[in-house]
């Protein structure tokens, strides 16, 4: 693998995400109610809660595409919009939420992760099409594709990929952004063992390089194994703390999260 670029600098601030009194609603129905928490920089956080508990809503607020009714969000101690405009926030959606019929190749999809950086290219360069942009962008894109082992499919239209390949493309797109904070919405769901392994390995390396990871998941086994901190969420914060304390049965019952026993053993066998 090519040499990794410099580790993430933005860990100067102690907290990556700081949320206070956050309330959000869809069509007047409350989804998040007075949520407050802090997530440390450079750590791996997982958000756990039952369906409809506001996990995805929380991520879309951090990603900037939903405006909360009330409450305050700070990223790295500062204005979240300013952070986003510096491309410091990367978001990996659930893959059902994308238009896979879109006429775009794997390479071009991954390249969109660089668009924020291209906007800051000098003068007229920012208006250039992605394929004419600086070599640096293309090198980063090639490295990300190699890292998720999708480089041989770079020219393939995204509509022809399998579910696991689609996730890996989204992961590569996230990597090209080189953001100090990444938000992942159920990156492990519906994957075979190899793709799952690959995504977790990539995230672990990113974590070692100082990236802050916020991951929504139902996967308790891998949470136990990798997470530094767990946020139990069900419309409001149930509790937040290290996985060993948060993943006890009584805590999970309070969150109404899926229990250890309801996990499918086959999917977790290799990671356990």
């Amino acid at each position, binding site marked *: 693998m090519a040499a990794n670029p410099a580790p993430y600098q933005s860990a100067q601030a102690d907290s990556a995400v700081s949320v206070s009194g956050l309330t959000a609603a869809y069509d*007047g129905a409350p989804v998040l109610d007075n949520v407050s928490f802090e997530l440390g920089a450079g750590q791996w956080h997982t958000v756990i809660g039952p369906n409809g508990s506001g996990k995805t809503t929380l991520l879309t607020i951090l990603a900037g595409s939903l405006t909360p009714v009330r409450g305050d969000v700070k990223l790295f101690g500062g204005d979240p*919009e300013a952070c986003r405009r510096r491309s410091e926030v990367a978001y990996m*959606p659930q893959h059902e939420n994308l238009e896979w019929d879109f*006429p*775009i190749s794997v390479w071009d999809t991954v390249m*969109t992760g660089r*668009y*924020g950086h291209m906007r800051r290219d000098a003068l007229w360069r920012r208006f250039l099409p992605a394929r004419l942009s600086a070599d640096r962008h293309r090198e980063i894109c090639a490295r990300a594709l190699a890292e998720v082992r999708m480089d041989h499919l770079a020219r393939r239209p995204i509509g022809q990929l399998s579910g696991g390949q689609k996730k890996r493309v989204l992961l590569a797109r996230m990597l090209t952004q080189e953001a100090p904070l990444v938000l992942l919405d159920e990156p492990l769901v519906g994957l075979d063992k190899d793709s799952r392994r690959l995504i977790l390995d990539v995230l672990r390396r990113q974590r070692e390089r100082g990236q802050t990871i916020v991951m929504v998941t139902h996967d308790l086994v891998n949470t136990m194994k990798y997470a530094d901190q767990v946020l139990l969420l069900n419309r409001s914060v149930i509790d937040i703390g290290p996985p060993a304390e948060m993943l006890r049965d009584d805590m999970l019952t309070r969150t109404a999260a899926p229990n250890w026993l309801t996990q499918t053993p086959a999917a977790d066998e290799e990671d356990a």
Partner: protein
Amino acid sequence: MVEGFDAFSRNVVDVLLGGLMGVVGLLPESIAEPFQYAFMQRALLTAIVVGATCGLLSCFIVLKRWSLLGDAISHAVLPGVAIAYLVGWPFFIGAFITGALTSLGIGAIERHTRLKADAAMGVMFTAAFAIGVVIISQIASSTHLMHILFGNVLGVQPAALLLTIIAGLIAVAAVALFYKELLLYTFDPVQTRALGFHSGRIHYGLILLLTLTIVASLETVGIILVVAMLATPGATAHLLTDRLPVMLAIAIGVGVFSAIIGLYLAYYFNLASGGSIVVVASTLFLLALVFSPRHGLLRRWFRDAAIRRAH
């Protein structure tokens, strides 16, 4: 001032037509024959510009699932045309104002109320269209109304042609300069926000571009049929390729080709020009639908048959 603009546009259009006729002159005489008339020359230039502009925009319309929005804006343009006629302005300006107001209104309702896009459009554009019909029933002659509704490319005046060309140039420049933003916004609006792009500006910018294109196409294909030119070329191209730049090129090609062939048919068989242009575009779509190498019906039929045989 209006007369000054008329004279200016006649000069500009004459220069452009000179260039265009230089190309047409190279063609065999039987093909070039209709273009000895000035009105046919202007019609050809208009048709090419409108076909290309609509084709370009239609890709984003199809991918963003905005075909209905095109329909809505084109209808909303009618009251503007009627009011401009009353006041004596070029109807281009009135059309742009009411079209833009209605489309911004639709966008605002969609973003800020619980109503979904289709309801917002259904209410806004029928209301605007009704106001237009009411005003026109009071003032204008029915032939004028027919030209607005169905277009008459054979009667295009130099001033309107120049405005069409300017609108086309603006659309091309906007797509070229903000290609990355448009691609990102049509593909993944959430990622657009996460990267700190102003998705609201891109959203309304695309709507204004759409309005501009519709208004520019009014005289050629008319209010009713412009939506066909904003959907058919993009839909045809979508069936033929899996790459956006290629899709843009094919859609522009389909738009221009239909406009030229439709114009010929209108000239030789004395047909309504707007209708014949759209009929040609729809025929191309039908061909792509059946014969497209990857997404066509024939290909799908053969593939299914092969799978059935294998089992």
